[in-house]
């Protein structure tokens, strides 16, 4: 009896310590019940199991979801990327198929399979608490090569692309950095601390809400789009003026 109590105590302690360490940054206030998990499992079996396997163990058509955590599910389902519409180089963002409650139930089910990144705390999602200038430096070092310096997105290899970040919710930006959806690498709490992730969110919020001081942004796509614009409209104006200049007056 004493042994059993000791064993129970030890398990509780190590489990608690583990949960504290793995979720230190993102201990979520959202409580999940056993019923949520059961509902989530039903949704999973009906909608996801074809590719991810009956027990989320993965198949030829989809990766294992054991250990991806609630954050990955919330991102993939919440932005409509999953369930996948069709196979292709990349799953595109679309209108979400599940409402918030169903997404939370799915996330609860996947999180119950193995520990993984949880849905982040609101404290780390508030742009007002972050430093946009520091976030800009971090964004240019870690994100801008794929997502463009102001988050307009860009092309990758063989039909894949880094999507535009405008209009993406703070929570989904955080979760994408944390879980590395599709071909995006993961940025764990060691390489980008939760505070640094919040700085990046603050930077994106700043550039998405500010007025462009230079007038037309032309999609903020950089020199190629701007060159194309001046090629058509600038050269067009020059040609038009030349024709007018050399025409005889009536």
């Amino acid at each position, binding site marked *: 009896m004493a042994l059993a109590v000791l064993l129970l105590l030890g398990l509780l302690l190590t489990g608690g310590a583990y949960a504290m360490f793995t979720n230190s940054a993102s201990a979520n206030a959202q409580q999940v019940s056993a019923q949520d998990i059961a509902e989530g499992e039903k949704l999973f079996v009906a909608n996801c199991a074809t590719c991810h396997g009956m027990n989320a163990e993965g198949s030829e058509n989809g990766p294992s979801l054991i250990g991806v955590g609630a954050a990955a599910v919330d991102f993939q389902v919440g932005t409509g990327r999953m369930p996948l519409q069709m196979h292709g180089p990349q799953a595109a963002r679309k209108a979400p198929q599940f409402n918030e409650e169903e997404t939370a139930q799915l996330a609860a089910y996947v999180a119950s399979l193995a520990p993984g990144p949880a849905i982040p705390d609101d404290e780390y999602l508030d742009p007002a608490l972050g430093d946009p200038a*520091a976030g*800009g*430096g*971090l964004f*240019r*070092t*870690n994100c801008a*090569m*794929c997502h463009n310096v102001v988050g307009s997105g*860009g092309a*990758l*290899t*063989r039909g*894949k692309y*880094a999507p535009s970040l405008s209009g993406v919710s703070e929570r989904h930006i955080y979760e994408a950095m944390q879980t*590395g959806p*599709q*071909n*995006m*690498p*993961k*940025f*764990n709490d*060691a*390489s980008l601390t939760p505070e*640094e992730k919040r700085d990046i969110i603050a930077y994106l919020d700043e550039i998405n809400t*500010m*007025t*462009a*001081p*230079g*007038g037309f942004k032309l999609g903020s796509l950089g020199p190629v789009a701007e060159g194309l614009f001046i090629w058509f409209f600038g050269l067009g104006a020059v040609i038009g003026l030349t024709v*007018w*200049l050399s025409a*005889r*007056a*009536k």
Partner: protein
Amino acid sequence: MSSKEHTVTSDELDVNGHTNPGLPEHKPRLTDTYPEIERRFERQVAGWFVLSMLGTVLFIVSFIAIEPGESYDLMRLSNTLLGLGATLALLGIGVGAIVWAKNLMNDHEVTESRHDIHGSEEDRAIAVEIIKQAKEESGIARRPLIRNTLIAALALAPLPAVIVFRELGPLPGDKLFNTLWDQGVRLAIDTGGIPENPRLLRAEDVTIGSVVHVIPENIHDGDHALDEKAKAAVLLMKIDPDELNEDPERADWSYDGIVAYSKICTHVGCPVALYEHQTHHLLCPCHQSTFDVTDHCKVIFGPAKRPLPQLPITVDSEGYLVAQSDFPDPVGPTFWEINTR
């Protein structure tokens, strides 16, 4: 200049086998015929010039009245009004002048004949005479000693310039071959710019599928930290060791699936950092050179010719990731002297 009456002469009838068509018939413009249209164009030209004046005033007023530093909206307003003012000021003068010239200035056609380019026979004879006289009087043809020493002196005279230009800047020396990485230098996280106290990186901090932008911890040791960073920047990735396809002789350059490669493209030196963690392709955004991280960053697409140099890494006794040595291959674009050592 001849007048507008044009008479066809016999030698103009056949120019290179073509008959000279002469000038088209002169048609008077509307402004030549109707005085009210002429007055309308006069007012239009004056209008363009007045518009130019208004543009100048707009520029000066908006320059004085708007402090652009206050907010993004004011910055945008200031830029818009300054641009509009300058455009109107210059365009008004230009368009007004052209409308004036096309519609109001005299409209008669003018024909001018071409002249021979060469001088008259007399002038040419004088020039030849001057050269002959200079040859005679200087005696350069009769005195080969003077002539040859002069040629030699002229040939040598530019040499000081070559020596001076050579000293204008420091020669690269071995800068192209060395970076700050060395045995035991710890890997630190690049948090943008030059961090004051770089955060060090442990092997357990790097999870599979993650990528970390890395600089040497001794980034402040060089003369110019940004120059050193530009050479020593490293991309660290962790790949499932089963997916890594390593040379036996380079197998100990990685640690538990963690591999470190130079971030500077071997084509023209852009930062290569578009890492796809499912395909393990590393793409350069400038010219689409693509490197296979599982295969020692071999070039699989694009204009780059060399694989990205690998930084041999390991962990020290405290668990921090450290370099085993400098890059064995020079980082960045290939250069002429790359095979000299």
